[in-house]
């Protein structure tokens, strides 16, 4: 059960939205799509769903092309709310789920379970326009997963939610993954991707700039962060060889260094200069990697 994208390209006229993207999304995993605004994430999703025709390349699920016959096994949460404002939650979900091939009775039972889980059982007979944006997002999420899809595509699933609801939704997503659903999701919130995904891909203007498993990406990035808390001024480290970034903090500074070995040189340098409270070598965060890789082209 893998989703494969092979040399996927999409052009709008002369504008290349997605350029030669090849991916393999393993079964039973969560795959993160990262990218700035307009990087081509939504376009890629739309091509997977068949909403847009690809210019060239191939998309397969288990080796088969995706078409409307597969509607039942795919769940999609679009970036923007897409619900009928005037309809009641129940009617809404029944309608959308039936389009995916579910029976009415089945839907009502599942819907009750989901509303219960999201602690909003009273919304069953409310109109969507009466709900807050965050609660609409929950309903939208239910509509994407109620038919137990094998492949779930989430476009910015956590936008507009408060931290409690983000946690609730995250748990639901993790449960689905554990039940065997392959999940692809996009976000610009690095911490969500870092927390949830085993594999990821960073898109930059349609080009995949980083791609692979989270651990490998971090390891191959090479640069590390060094956290120092000390009682003396640390400004001199700005010009220290191998330090690529310097950021002053309340208790000391955070450095980015080009490789692990630099940390030992700094360690020696600091000896005898004063009292060092904390000296810690950290893995780079995804945020750092993103800014480094994507930000480069903004400069």
């Amino acid at each position, binding site marked *: 059960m893998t989703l494969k994208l092979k040399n996927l390209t999409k052009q709008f006229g002369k504008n290349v939205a997605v350029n030669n993207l090849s991916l393999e999304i393993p079964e039973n995993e969560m795959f993160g799509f990262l990218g700035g605004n307009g990087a081509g994430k939504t376009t890629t999703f739309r091509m997977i769903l068949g909403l847009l025709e690809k210019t060239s390349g191939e998309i397969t699920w288990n080796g088969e092309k995706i078409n*409307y016959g597969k509607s039942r096994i795919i769940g999609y949460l679009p970036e923007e709310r*897409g619900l*009928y404002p005037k309809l009641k939650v129940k009617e809404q979900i029944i309608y959308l789920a039936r389009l995916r091939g579910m029976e009415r009775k089945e839907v009502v039972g599942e819907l009750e379970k989901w509303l219960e889980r999201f602690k909003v059982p009273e919304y069953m007979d409310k109109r969507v326009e009466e709900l807050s944006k965050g609660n609409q997002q929950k309903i939208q999420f239910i509509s994407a997963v109620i038919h137990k899809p094998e492949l779930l595509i989430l476009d910015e699933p956590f936008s507009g939610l408060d931290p409690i609801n983000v946690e609730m939704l995250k748990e639901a997503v993790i449960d689905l993954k554990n039940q065997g659903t392959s999940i692809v999701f996009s976000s610009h919130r690095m911490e969500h991707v870092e927390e949830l995904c085993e594999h990821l891909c960073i898109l930059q203007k349609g080009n995949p700039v980083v791609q692979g498993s989270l651990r490998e990406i971090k390891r191959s990035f090479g640069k590390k962060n060094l956290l120092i808390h000390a009682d003396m001024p640390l400004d001199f480290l700005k010009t220290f060889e191998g330090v690529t970034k310097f950021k002053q903090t309340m208790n000391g500074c955070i450095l980015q260094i080009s490789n692990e070995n630099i940390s030992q040189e700094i360690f020696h340098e600091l000896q005898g200069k004063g009292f060092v409270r904390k000296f810690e070598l950290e893995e780079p965060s995804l945020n750092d990697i993103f800014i480094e890789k994507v930000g480069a082209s903004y400069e």
Partner: protein
Amino acid sequence: MTHTYLSKLRTKVFYISTVLILAFLLVMVNFESIIKAFGGEEEQKVAIIDESGELLNYINLQTSDSELILEPFSDSVEDAKSLVIEDEYEALVTVKLNDEGLPEATFFSKNITDSELQLSIQQQLQQVKVTLASSQLGIDQAAIHEVFSPITIHKVALDENVKTEEERNQAMGIVYAMLLLLYVFVMMYGSMIATDVATEKSSRVMEILVSSAPPITHMFAKIIGIALLGLTQIGILIVVAFIMLQSKSEQIGGLIVSFGLDNASISIILYGVLFFLLGFFLYATLAAMLGSLVSRVEEANQIVTPIIFLIAIGFFLAIFGMNAPESQIVIITSYIPFFAPLLMFLRVGLVDVPIWEVLISVGILVGTIILLAIIGAKVYKGGVLLYGNSNPFKDIKKAVQLTKKD
């Protein structure tokens, strides 16, 4: 499809429009009684003063209009005028003979807006004048009657296939009814379809719909759903109209006969249904396609304007064609897809059209519908992902391109 049908069925607009049309029907049927209830009131009394002393003998005081009563008045003209002002009398008429011995009259009233009253008095006096003038000339009353009786013309068509006058009159009613129905239906439901699609687009639910089911299924489900809705509305109207007929059968009976509905032939009704459905699907497909191009509901009304123009042109051509069903323009336009449902039906109803001509017209219609559906589905699929407002015709191109591989 069920979704569109049921959700629309529950909307206020549907109730309101149905109730309004029903109310309109009710008013129309009971128009006379309503007029009576308001002003129709008591009889109108008109004082009449005969200055010649002999004219009164000729005037029929019990006029054919039961509400108008002429009352001879013996006091002076001034007295009579003041009574008119006091509303005792509706009006005052003085009559006298002029130099040639013919009647002349003066009409006094508080205002002279009630032309109906003036007209009936004028008719009365006209008769008197004819009688007097003819007797002066020494012509017999019977002869006068001869002269004024209308001529009778017997119409005989030499082509045996041609429809008889009677048949044609009968068909006229049903053709007119069908033209009007299709016109109103397309106007109402065409923009409903476009608005509906635009609503789904603007609430972005479209993205989910189109990713769950093929757009063409969705489009036709929508069209059929709304068509069913319309048929429901027509159904309700027919049932209510039927009930009303039962209660007022005498009055309406005449109306039905005059519309030729009482014994219209089955084939005409079948043709009517056929052309109605074809016409509806044609315009509905167009409306759905155009509706998918706009991104806001407000723009939907704007984009259906061309459709309304088309159907309006067809409708007026057809109205014109009712009097000249064999004219060149009617024949030509009965093959042009957007006018064909109206004009071909008109021809079928009013004149004899060879079956192959009908088939060609139906064929062209069906072909156009299929073509529009194919283009429509493409535009629809691309259009639902297009946002922003630019030129609709550019958008059609863009939308089609979106679905194409470059």
